[in-house]
């Protein structure tokens, strides 16, 4: 992930920010980026293992879009950190588990194609709503990344919601299995709207997205598709959270050991 180009700097006066503000912005950017990083890694695992050639290619294409977005966020986060030893690569590969801020949803395994699609569907709806708001951020760099990403994430949402309809309203087997995934992964949806200290600080600055305002729209958006797909909307009231604070599920260590292997084995390696 090294090249000779740099991303255009925003007009954000980083120099005028206090340590605390910089820290919050840094953490805020990582919170956004880590969701895409870990989901991208999960999708990447399917490369060459998708249930069909088309879905295999789709999964890796989505993964590639997400990694591209992550690079823009990490390059910016590295700038904000004000520390020369922090780069997009160290942020991606050299942190320890507790330092990753992704939600639990995106680290859930590719149990089967139903789970993979439902995880994608539940995240894409949130991702799209989130980016539409982030586009209005007073931070020019975040706004530009959001604007660019919306176009790509719209395709992701089309893909995943289309598959929810096909599987839900498909055969009794596909219906049953996708329903199981929906019921199972539902408990990870609420965390998407959980706000950390960094989130709240950034919302107050007009930089961050007030996700609490997106919650109702989100559940309406996914419920509409689930209904169309003849699937039941879960009624469970128990939700998991913790990922945003770095408290991850048992899956996270395995993801990282795979993802970080090359950097840990050959420190500072480059492509």
């Amino acid at each position, binding site marked *: 992930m090294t090249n*000779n180009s740099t991303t255009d700097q925003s007009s954000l006066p980083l120099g005028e920010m206090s340590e605390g503000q910089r820290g919050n912005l840094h953490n805020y950017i990582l919170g956004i980026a880590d969701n895409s990083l870990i989901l991208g890694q999960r999708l990447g695992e399917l490369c060459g293992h998708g249930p069909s050639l*088309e879905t295999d290619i789709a999964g890796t294409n989505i*993964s590639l*879009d*997400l990694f591209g977005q992550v690079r823009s966020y990490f390059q910016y986060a590295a700038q904000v950190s004000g520390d020369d030893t922090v780069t997009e690569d160290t942020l991606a590969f050299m942190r320890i588990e507790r330092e990753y801020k992704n939600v639990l949803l995106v680290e859930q395994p590719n149990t089967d194609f139903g789970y993979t699609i439902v995880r994608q569907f539940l995240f894409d709806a949130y991702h799209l709503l989130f980016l539409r708001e982030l586009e209005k951020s007073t931070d020019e760099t975040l706004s530009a990344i959001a604007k660019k990403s919306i*176009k790509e994430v719209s395709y992701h949402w089309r893909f995943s919601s289309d598959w929810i309809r096909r599987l839900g309203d498909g055969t009794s087997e596909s219906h049953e299995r996708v329903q199981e995934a929906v019921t199972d992964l539902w408990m990870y949806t609420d965390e998407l709207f959980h706000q950390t200290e960094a989130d709240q600080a950034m919302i107050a600055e007009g930089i961050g997205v007030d996700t609490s305002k997106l919650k109702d729209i989100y559940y309406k958006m996914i419920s509409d598709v689930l209904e169309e797909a003849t699937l039941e909307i879960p009624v469970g009231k128990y939700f998991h959270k913790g990922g945003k604070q770095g408290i991850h599920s048992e899956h996270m260590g395995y993801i990282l050991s795979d993802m970080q292997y090359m950097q840990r084995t050959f420190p500072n390696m480059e492509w």
Partner: protein
Amino acid sequence: MSIIQNIQPHLLSILESVSDPEIPVLSIMDMGVVREAIETDGIVQVKITPTYSGCPAMDVIGDDIVSAFAKAGKKAKITLVLSPAWTTDWITPRGRKALEDYGIAAPLSPEADKDALLGGKKIVKCTNCGSTETHLVSQFGSTACKALFKCDTCQEPFDYFKCLK
């Protein structure tokens, strides 16, 4: 929508010699990714806009621009500009023709693109025989920018360059 470009005329032919690594018939100028190229104090500052975020071609394009200028005895520095975001509207008419000749159907208008990719409407023209009796095989194709189609007349599969706007 027209492109806001600021390119010094004497640098144009060098930029035109650089092509998209994944679609070699398409120059980066026809692709519409170059925003600015200005030579100051012996260094050419080139601003390019990425097509898709994760497009691995962007790094290669950056390297290729640097080496194209190096061949001409010039030093170049590449900057990625994210905003305004690249759109398929920035592909020039010559670029669209090059795509079609290469076997990739050029992007349709946003509405027609939606009809083709979501509504299943038969409007994407086969690049092999010209028939519009075609159907979408997959929204995602061999690269991030393409969808995969198949022609029901000549039975050939072909790529469609997705509209991005």
